[in-house]
């Protein structure tokens, strides 16, 4: 039995080594995808185009606009007195946000110590609009706090550019904020680990499925099926090479993530590799299952891509799982990719150890065993 495993393994490695297409698929495609996706898959908000509708045209109004342009979050796309020009700009897509400063803004600030500005956002992309809104609100709040703390008469203070020293003696609570684990809010740090997982999943699943279905198409699978090889030996010989390749690619991907994309490796690499080893069982098991339900490579490709789409969208790679409705979150628990992505992110970015990620590891182990078990039980040497 060990002997037949050995000769089959030799065959698999020889075939992989000789196939230029497979080699390219294994080496070049993932690297290319990693490089493109790492740059394309980002929700980072660069400077938003702000259109200012200044109906007040006073030093106070200008000071407020200065507070906006002083940050890197906004760049002024245009000024107008009339709000219609701003409207147009937004419809054309030239403005993401509209800041409307009403007439008598300065007068209200000085006289009533209260005024209102209007912020209009292009909310087609809701989450982005939400963020831009919070940035803008923060600027307005800070400006009002600045005005509140000043010792100058308001009439003079409203137009100044610098932040005056706070008044002493009053009880003051200073609110500070800190973004942890990704202080620079770098999207690549967050996305690259997930993309890496997606790549080894696609490679592992697709390669397994195509590899077996190709033998079906060529007729060599029948030839093997009339021999006394045990299904378990055949499957082990098919999966072992791809399992090793998957692990090597994962390790290589980690190096690229570290060197090219500056992704920190806070936690244990060994823990990650153990996780990948378990996770790959689930990915390869899925590929094996696809191969049992497909007769042609085209079908295998279709089935794999459809499954990948569900996998990806429910994995938390692009959008947080916790934003999904409860029942979808329940379904997502069955997605091994979801568990592994969350584990890889936690270990890489937060330095989580076994104590923090054992749940994910356990889930991966269970799902991997279940998938591989299902696929192996589906595999038949004889058509019923």
């Amino acid at each position, binding site marked *: 039995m060990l002997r037949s495993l050995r000769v089959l393994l030799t*065959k698999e490695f020889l075939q992989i080594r000789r196939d230029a297409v497979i080699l390219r698929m294994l080496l070049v495609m993932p690297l290319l995808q990693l490089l493109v996706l790492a740059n394309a898959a980002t929700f980072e908000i660069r400077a938003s185009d702000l259109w200012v509708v200044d109906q007040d045209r006073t030093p106070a109004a200008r000071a407020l606009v200065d507070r906006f342009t002083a940050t890197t979050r906004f760049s002024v796309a245009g000024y107008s007195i009339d709000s219609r020009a701003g409207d147009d700009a937004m419809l054309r897509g030239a403005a993401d946000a509209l800041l409307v400063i009403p007439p008598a803004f300065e007068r209200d600030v000085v006289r009533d110590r209260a005024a209102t500005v209007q912020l209009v956002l292009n909310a087609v992309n809701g989450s982005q609009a939400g963020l831009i809104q919070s940035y803008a609100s923060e600027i307005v709040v800070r400006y009002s706090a600045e005005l509140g703390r000043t010792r100058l008469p308001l009439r003079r203070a409203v137009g100044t550019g610098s932040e005056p020293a706070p008044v002493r003696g009053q009880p003051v609570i200073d609110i500070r904020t800190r973004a942890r684990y990704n202080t620079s809010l770098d999207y690549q740090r967050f996305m690259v680990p997930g993309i890496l997982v997606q790549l080894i999943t696609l490679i592992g699943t697709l390669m397994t499925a195509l590899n077996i279905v190709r033998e079906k198409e060529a*007729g060599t699978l029948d*030839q093997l099926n009339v*021999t006394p090889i045990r299904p378990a030996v055949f499957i082990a010989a098919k999966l072992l090479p791809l399992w090793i390749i998957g692990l090597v690619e994962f390790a290589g991907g980690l190096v690229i993530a570290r060197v090219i994309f500056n992704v920190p490796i806070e936690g244990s690499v060994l823990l990650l590799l153990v996780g990948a080893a378990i996770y790959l069982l689930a990915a390869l098991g899925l590929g094996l299952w696809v191969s049992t339900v497909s007769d042609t490579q085209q079908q295998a490709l279709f089935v794999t891509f459809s499954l990948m789409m569900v996998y990806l969208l429910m994995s938390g790679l692009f959008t947080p799982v916790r934003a999904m409705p409860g029942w979808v979150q329940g379904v997502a628990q069955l997605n091994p990719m979801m568990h592994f992505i969350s584990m890889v992110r936690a270990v890489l970015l937060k330095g989580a150890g076994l104590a923090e990620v054992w749940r994910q590891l356990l889930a991966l182990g269970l799902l991997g065993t279940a998938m591989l078990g299902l696929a192996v039980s589906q595999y038949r040497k004889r058509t019923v």
Partner: protein
Amino acid sequence: MTIRSAAPAIVARSLSRRFGSFTAVDRISFEVQAGEVFGFLGANGAGKTTAIRMLTGLLSPSDGEASVAGFDVRTQIEQVRRHIGYMSQRFSLYDDLTVRENIRLYGGIYGLTDAEIAERTTAILAELRFAPSVAALVRSLPLGWKQKLALSVALLHRPAVVFLDEPTGGVDPITRRQFWELIYQAAARGTTVFVTTHYLDEAEYCDRLSIMVDGRVAALGTPSALKAEFSVPTLDEVFVRLARGPATGAVL
């Protein structure tokens, strides 16, 4: 009909296979004696390949019984597999492996020792006059060579029965003759040969023949007995008479 002393190598009794409402093989029964070269003839779609797939354990029978090399194909399929060789219609070696690698692979799968593999590799290469091509990828060999190599590999573990499904398709007449010499050598060593073919001249080489029409065995016997039965001079005419339609077949 040559009767041999040993138990029959292949027995089929009312063996049937249905795909949905279509009956591909309809209650076929026959026996093949050990060491016999048994020809399995029939038009395209007559059910030859389906029958072979059931006998080799690639397809479950819907009904009936069959045994190969003394083992039941329903219940003892793993023992059956250990005692048979198979060469399918489609060329079935790995064309991205070399000649030697293919031989090693199948030798290893059937549990031959390294010494046995080495010895038989040398024998095969000598027999086929392949020695210079041993390190060539199978893909690069001419079709006739590939077929001869596939047959040798199917016989590598000295199986009791070998199934050849249209082994000479697309091969030139000279190579076909060499191929049949290999078949006779195997039979002489005691291997039972179960072979399907389109070529009626090849059918003449068989000890006995069965001709399938629409999933049934329409005729069974030695080539000369069949010609006598239909009172025609050639197997060709036997075949045409049978294949003309179920009505004709029923009358006969």
